[in-house]
């Protein structure tokens, strides 16, 4: 297996561990951890590697943890909205929320934190709601 494939394998396995932990399945995550360790050892023993493995691994682990956290928040927001859309067909507020959520999740990823919505996006949503509620003319 080449170097890129080894790193890819660690990434996939560790993401799976993060997902399982996030879902509260700690025991299942623990079952995969030996495979992660084995893949990490394979990287360390790879003749193609350029060294400095620990720093790269730390960065990879942090990135995957962040991705799973962001995805989890996004899913928490999106799922009820999709359900709501399926239930009553009210597409407008759902669409507004989807746009916002995607932006928020993206912002959160970049900031390395949980979704931090933009105030200007909130104001956009408010103006959109007002146009519907009060019939104000669009700009």
């Amino acid at each position, binding site marked *: 297996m080449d170097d890129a494939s080894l790193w890819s394998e660690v990434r996939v396995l560790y993401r799976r561990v993060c997902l399982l932990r996030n879902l509260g399945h700690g025991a299942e995550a623990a079952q995969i951890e030996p495979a992660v360790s084995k893949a990490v050892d394979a990287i360390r023993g790879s003749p193609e590697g350029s060294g400095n493995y620990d720093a790269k691994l730390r960065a990879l682990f942090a990135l995957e943890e962040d991705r799973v956290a962001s995805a989890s*928040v996004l899913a928490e*927001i999106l799922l*009820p909205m999709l359900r709501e859309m399926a239930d009553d067909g009210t597409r407008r507020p759902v669409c*507004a929320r989807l746009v916002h959520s995607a932006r928020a999740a993206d912002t959160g990823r970049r*900031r390395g934190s949980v979704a931090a919505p933009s*105030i200007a996006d909130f*104001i956009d949503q408010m103006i959109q709601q007002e146009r519907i509620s009060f019939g104000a003319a669009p*700009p």
Partner: protein
Amino acid sequence: MTIMSTSTIERPSAAPATPSTANPPAMPGRAGVARGKTVLVGFDLGTNKSCLLAGPTGSTDIVVSKVIPSVIGYVKDGIVDGIIAGNRSVLFGEDALANGLHVRLVAPLAEGVIADRAAAHEFLQHIRSLADSSGNSEIRAVVGVPANAGEVARDDIRRAALGIFDRILLIPEPFLAALGYRDDSRLAQPNYIDPVVNSLFIDIGGGTSDLCLVQGCFPTRDDQISVAFAGDAIDELMHSELDRTYPNNGLSRLRVREIKETHGYVGPSRKPLDVRVIIGGKAHTLELGDVIGRACNVLIDRIYPALTTLIERADSNSVVILLQNIIITGGGSQLKGIDTLLQKRLTDDGYEAPRVRLAGQDYKRYVAIGALKAARAARENQWQVLLG
């Protein structure tokens, strides 16, 4: 000035959708006078107290920070020169209250909305003068409105602001409170729970108690409930009961409010609760434990159904975290025991590990802080221009 219909007095700015973080170019004022710098204002127009924060564009500095009683005093006829400093004919806020003997006090708002348009206009002129002493800056104000305020109430604010603020945005108060309460410096911390992502705000003011679900997107009308019972209604109940219990007590509504602000509580009766008052020039000590408790507990009875209604409207996947983030702000948050009582009632009713907490000592300012944050973040095309 003739005021036209709403659609003609308000229009969104036609400027491109860029953030207003930089100082925008000066624009002509309403009377054709060139405006100087731009001042951003966050304003909580409250029934009893208003809070003004103002600062320049392009920075986070707050240049003006004031809590002002929402009252105007029109000086009575026949007051001799020199009694009122500067021989002014109209006084505002603390000044008006301090000269209560010589002025006719008028409250511009009642139950959270404008009750006297002329007084509201004068009050906003005063606010403008505090925010911009030069008088020639462009003023862009984000003003808090009660949750679910109707178009009439909103239009009244716009009319009152005509010729005073150059651009305006009206945003529901409890949402602004959430923005104001949010600690921006901690957003990047993994253990910080952003109140804007998932919380329930209870903003108890003078005229209304506003409850709002804040769950990562702008609250819809279904996410907000405004209860027309708050500090003023408690004062009224206390005053009525005092009049029955102690006839001819001579206590003013203002004094009753002071008593509530000092001794107000909810929950089981706290007796004895002795309060010293001056009646007919003589000091008396009245036992007011029951009077105060009964009046304040009505607030709980009124807001609790609204609280549970909003909790039940919250998405089932997020409600557990939401229950950990119920935050009380506004003057009503100062009623002793209000957080523990609401938490206990939720627990007793079977809600999962609820946690109700008080916003803290800045409770008078959170709406205005949120409003100023919104003013700083608003894009050019989001501001509404008021046209006369």
